[in-house]
């Protein structure tokens, strides 16, 4: 395991292994001393070409709990605005001796380029690139689903705590909202499929990408029918960017009100979910748009827990990339 660039690159064994490692990491986080010495003396650079305080803090916390030195490099000025180029930034980090680079970038594929262009030999963790991928988000989502629901799927070997060792076979996950622009949706579709879950994407047709018919999932334009007829075990609401409803003729839907009416998780729809079903959101939420306060604050919601699980999953990813089994070296995870 050399890089973590896309969930589509993960085998089922690797994915389950990552989740199991995250469970071990999570177990250490209930101790009084949360810090592990594992990555002492190693340097992790958080390279953010796009603002994301939440993701950066999560990675920073994960790295620090593993005793790594953490450098935050905010590179918002991109080559588009004639700041330093991606290449020069990479060469700089290489010269500084970074062991791992956590990269968030507005451009799809930028982490892939960092990993493959030969500018840098550090491990590259994709912390979200453009509208492409967000692998640690999908892993933390899968981890959360497994903790709550693996006992319901067929993948659980003997009821181990927190679903350790299990995949997500037999579980149904609805992903609702702006699929077109969502790296979270792409990352989740690939990973959930690998782990054996079934996925239905629910969105207005304008927010479904051309080509989605080749994705390993179902697509629906009808949230109510999906909830009533398909009976998902988990409902994942995607954030709807404000800019998607502006732009006049180019707006993706007529109004926020209409979006909420058809695709929002309100109290009425919440009440129709199965008793065991969970409600997820990658954050930050637009309360009142894609998710109502009732849904966000209900006891079905695991949104805050997702944040905590994010730290465990990112600890696992950093650990496996930087201190993992050297026999797997050169093997893109």
């Amino acid at each position: 395991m050399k890089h973590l660039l896309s969930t589509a690159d993960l085998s089922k064994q690797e994915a389950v292994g990552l989740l199991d490692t995250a469970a071990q990491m999570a177990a250490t986080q209930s101790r009084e001393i949360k810090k592990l010495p594992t990555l002492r003396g190693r340097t992790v650079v958080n390279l953010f070409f796009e603002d994301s305080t939440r993701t950066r803090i999560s990675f920073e916390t994960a790295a620090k709990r593993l005793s790594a030195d953490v450098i935050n490099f905010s590179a918002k000025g991109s080559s588009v605005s004639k700041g330093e180029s991606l290449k020069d930034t990479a060469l700089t980090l290489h010269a500084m001796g970074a062991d791992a680079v956590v990269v968030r970038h507005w451009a799809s594929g930028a982490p892939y380029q960092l990993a493959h262009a030969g500018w840098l030999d550090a491990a590259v963790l994709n912390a979200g690139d453009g509208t492409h991928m967000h692998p640690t988000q999908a892993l933390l989502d899968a981890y959360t689903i497994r903790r709550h629901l693996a006992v319901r799927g067929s993948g659980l070997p003997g009821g181990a705590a927190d679903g350790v060792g299990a995949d997500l076979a037999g579980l149904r996950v609805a992903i609702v909202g702006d699929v077109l622009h969502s790296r979270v949706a792409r990352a989740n579709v690939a990973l959930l499929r690998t782990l054996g879950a079934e996925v239905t994407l629910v969105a207005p047709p304008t927010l479904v990408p051309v080509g989605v018919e080749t994705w390993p999932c179902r697509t629906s334009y009808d949230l109510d029918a999906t909830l009533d007829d398909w009976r998902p075990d988990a409902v994942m609401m995607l954030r709807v960017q404000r800019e998607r409803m502006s732009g006049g003729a180019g707006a993706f839907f007529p109004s926020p009100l209409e979006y909420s009416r058809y695709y929002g998780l309100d109290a009425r729809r919440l009440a129709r979910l199965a008793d065991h079903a969970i409600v997820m959101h990658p954050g930050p939420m637009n309360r009142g748009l894609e998710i109502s306060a009732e849904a966000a604050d209900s006891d079905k919601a695991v949104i805050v827990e997702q944040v905590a699980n994010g730290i465990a999953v990112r600890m696992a990813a950093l650990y496996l990339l930087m201190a993992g089994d050297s026999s797997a070296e050169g093997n893109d995870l």
Partner: protein
Amino acid sequence: MSTDPTTGTTTYVLRGARPLGGDAVDVVLAGGVVAEITAAGTARVDGATVVEAADHVLLPGLVDLHTHLREPGREDAETVASGTRAAAVGGFTAVHAMANTSPVADTAGVVEQVHRLGEQAGWADVHPVGAVTVGLDGVRLAELGAMADSAARVRVFSDDGRCVHDPVLMRRALEYVKAFDGVVAQHAQEPRLTEGAQMNEGVVSSQVGLAGWPAVAEEAIIARDVLLAEHVGSRLHVCHLSTAGSVEIVRWAKSRGIDVTAEVTPHHLVLTDELARTYDPTYKVNPPLRTAADVEAVRQGLADGTIDIVATDHAPHTREDKDCEWGAAAFGMTGLETALSVVQQTMVDTGLLSWADVARVLSANPARIGRVEATQGRPIAVGEPANLTLVDPAATRTIDGADQATASANTPFRGHELPGRVVATFLRGRATVLDGAPVEAGVVGAR
């Protein structure tokens, strides 16, 4: 070694060459023209420079209707001299230089400058393309008549890089250029449907998360334009057609008798959007690489004559404009030095075109569309201008951007093994390329 005193050119005997892939003959070039064609091995060679051409195919010098030479303005990427040198190496004897320079070629002054730079360089005839609209802004017509009347004698007008998207403006342009037998070469790209677009919209774009560029954005403009051309009785040229639907529309238009011609680039004959999975901006191009089904459709369209020509859309870019994120990179790829090889690989070696057809789509037809057929794209016959290209179709070569003559290295064929090699190029009897290498003007007589 003899030098003709009237033209200063060497006499060449191309021994055993096969004109248009036909039977081997000796072809003698003297005084800037084809002086003699005789049975193989019979030409008198005393005093002449002999080019051993057994099994080599002799073509009329290639004519590119779509080249970006970047000068004036972006001499860091290419100059008229470096670009036409690359053209010669690729077998071209004439290129049409696109107007999206800085300043834009939208006045008689700029087109005359480019034309003069071409004459000074001496590698190939340079025919400047005039902008349709002032500054390529798509708002008002540039002074098309002044460019047509200038020393550059512009006949092809294009806002290439941008689409003349306003339907009224397009209509006016189509009508106006009839006065001097010009043609509007349209870059068919509906701008609203392609805002922020990065690659072909389809299966691959959905997976790699790059904003999609739908085929309909090209096809809708072509459909509109052929109808406009029919309505006003003008001729229309469609630049770098790239989709199966575009081929269908042009085929339909021709069946109705509409005066439309179309071009395809070498890269759209072979490369697909699967390459975007590498996120290597070398493969970022406008129009974008499409699907395998589109590649098959444009090959068939070229084979059946729906598509009239192959044009390179040679688009050199500096390293810094390509060595970056896909989303930040410039659109375009070089093509002058690989075009003929790609056409051989995709069309000749597959049996879709003969060498005579290659002469048609890479020389005679582009010369006719660009209205330079008096000197370029001529038959290979005694008395014709000696604008010729000699190709060894049995050779293979591995492409490396660094060793090309173009000033930029953004070839999408890096590492590809391509068939065919241009052995020699002659411009009015002067060798611009011999043994596959460019020959500086004035050096030949001293050889």
